[in-house]
């Protein structure tokens, strides 16, 4: 089943590349997403033993990320049917094929238990998505694609060096001599400490670049700002989650080797820095897609802080990764609709989205409320767990700064969002034919309802999943 989850999107992607008809090529996306969702449900019902000599196995950590991604991808696939049909001026061969390859690569990251395989899959996600950023075929998106490609490839190369360092840590005679996570964790204290520490530094920089932690986030505003909303949703909702997953696995090994004090300080430091930077750049942001990018930086910071705090906050971090994935999906899809309907993404030109797009406009507002941690949406609860962990461990400075940055971000983001959504849309540029339709408005609506539902009632299965993931990584 795990192998099928990886291979089916890959096969569908190659078929999409070969398919000659532009109009009905997006159907492949729907088929792939549906198959993937069905597979995930199957794996929830009955988990599988490790495959391929232990290289692939779906554990709790992977399950969190894959569940979020599967849901998000399904919503995006439905959205893509409407969106790509309206954008049939563009050839969507690379887009559809690339998205399916991305799904396959992300699944591989989720189930990979071998750090080398994990790295190869993450590199594949970078290479698969860079051409997709260039979908709009203009100078700005080209510049964004170049920066994304260069910065992320640089980060991934450093992550490779870090992976090699980890392999070397276990290379002493009698050591595990393998890159399988369970071998490394089992050999824990016998791993060479200087190598593990150096490895963590490089892997934090490398996978942190892919996540978009400050100060390695410079590609995010450009890439998310210029990519189509659909791609932005997948990048910020799915890819960053898997980068966080990789970081969590590395942390798992570090903790087993006894280097976790150093790792935790680094994570909390970078996390707070990301939140601070996001707060600074969000105030007065005129481009609402770039604003969403900074929001993504902020949430990656929250995830890093959660992982770095340890204890009960780690489960909160995993819960938050699910919430973040879904909320970002809502925001980016709604933002994409607004962008298309007004033909611009600057607040100078966009007003009164709620009037022109009766579903996407209010959804954008609701998404903003969710993402900044307003109850009863689910991100409030996950952030609450993290804050609880901070104050409970006596780290009052961390908790205090966390709250401060969240407040600034709420104000900054709120000004932009309210400017976009409220008011009268008379006198703003208009793009007829890009109003709300079922295919483009229903997916974000459904995702929003899921976010609301998770906030009101968290199923027992999910909360157990987060706890077991936290136990695996941080041993609480």
């Amino acid at each position: 089943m795990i192998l099928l989850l990886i291979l089916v999107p890959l096969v569908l992607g190659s078929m999409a590349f070969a398919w000659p008809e532009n109009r009905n090529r997006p159907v492949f996306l729907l088929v792939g997403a549906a198959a993937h969702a069905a597979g995930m449900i199957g794996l929830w019902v009955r988990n599988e033993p490790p495959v391929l000599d232990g290289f692939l196995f779906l554990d709790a950590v992977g399950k969190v990320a894959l569940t979020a991604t599967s849901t998000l991808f399904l919503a995006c696939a439905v959205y893509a049917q409407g969106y790509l049909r309206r954008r049939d001026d563009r050839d969507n061969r690379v887009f559809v094929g690339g998205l399916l390859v991305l799904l396959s690569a992300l699944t591989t990251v989720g189930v990979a238990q071998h750090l080398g395989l994990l790295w190869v899959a993450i590199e594949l996600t970078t290479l698969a998505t860079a051409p997709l950023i260039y979908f709009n075929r203009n100078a700005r998106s080209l510049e964004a694609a170049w920066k994304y490609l260069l910065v992320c490839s640089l980060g991934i190369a450093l992550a490779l060096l870090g992976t090699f360092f980890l392999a070397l840590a276990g290379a002493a005679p009698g050591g595990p001599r393998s890159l399988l996570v369970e071998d490394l964790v089992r050999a824990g204290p016998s791993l060479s400490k200087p190598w593990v520490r150096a490895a963590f530094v490089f892997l934090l920089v490398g996978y942190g670049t892919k996540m978009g932690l400050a100060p390695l986030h410079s590609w995010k505003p450009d890439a998310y700002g210029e990519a189509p909303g659909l791609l932005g949703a997948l990048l910020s909702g799915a890819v960053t989650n898997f980068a966080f997953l990789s970081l969590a696995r590395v942390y798992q090994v570090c903790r087993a080797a006894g280097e976790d004090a150093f790792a935790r300080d680094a994570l909390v430091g970078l996390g707070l820095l990301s939140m601070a930077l996001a707060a600074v750049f969000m105030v007065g942001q005129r481009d609402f897609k770039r604003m969403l990018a900074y929001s993504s930086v902020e949430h990656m910071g929250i995830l890093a802080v959660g992982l770095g705090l340890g204890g009960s906050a780690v489960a909160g971090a995993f819960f938050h990764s699910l919430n973040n994935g879904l909320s970002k999906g809502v925001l980016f899809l709604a933002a994409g609709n607004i962008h298309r309907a007004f033909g611009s993404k600057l607040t100078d030109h966009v007003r009164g989205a709620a009037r022109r797009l009766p579903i996407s406009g209010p959804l954008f507002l609701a998404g903003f409320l969710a993402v900044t941690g307003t109850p009863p949406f689910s991100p409030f609860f996950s952030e609450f767990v993290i804050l609880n962990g901070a104050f409970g461990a006596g780290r009052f400075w961390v908790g205090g700064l966390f709250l401060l940055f969240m407040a600034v971000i709420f104000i900054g983001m709120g000004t932009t969002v309210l400017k976009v959504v409220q008011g009268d849309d008379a006198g703003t540029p208009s793009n007829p034919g890009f109003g709300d339709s079922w295919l483009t408005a229903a997916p974000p609506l459904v995702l929003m309802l899921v976010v609301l539902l998770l906030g009101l009632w968290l199923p027992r299965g999910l909360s157990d999943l987060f706890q077991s993931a936290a136990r695996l990584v941080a041993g609480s």
Partner: protein
Amino acid sequence: MAAWIDMVFILVVVIDLFTLASSRLNAAIRAVALQGALLSVLPLLLASWEHEIGHVLVLSLGALAIKAILIPWLMFRAIREAAIRREVEPIIGFVPSMILGGVGVALAFAFSRGLPLPSPERHAYLVPTALATVWTGLLLVVSRKKAVNQVLGFLILENGVFVFGLLLAEFMPVMVEAGVLLDLFAAVFVMGIVMFHINREFSSLDTEKLTALKD
């Protein structure tokens, strides 16, 4: 034999310093090609006779083909398309780049003292060379303005990672090395395509023109 291996490592670092100093793109690409060729010889020199000679040979030939022949050819084509000859004065000037490179080499040697190796005698210069090369690559990517030079910096960084991977060739399967080569090839291929588009869109490969997006 050990003396030859040391000479190769030292030559790799000298080539790093040379690329930091050179403003002619032709010379820089040739230097990186030479570095790739040197690195492809290293698996043969470093292999102890426990390994299968087949694996080692495939790795050497693969590295030679990709690093020394294929990728430089792609680079030369990119320059020819864009008709550029020289790098303009980079963000960090040539002299500060060289000095930073020298400092990086010294720091690499200093840091590698704290990283114990399983068999230190054979690979005395390996870790410092790898770290110094990675540092040079980073410096180039960050400070150069022409897209081709940035890709060259990325190549040099991957060369540094490759050098380090040679240490592991004894413990882990050749998959590790194959992974590096594959990554390099794929990444540069995609970069080449994007550069082609950049040239078409902006009529130049000067990334100074790519400054429309900022906050």
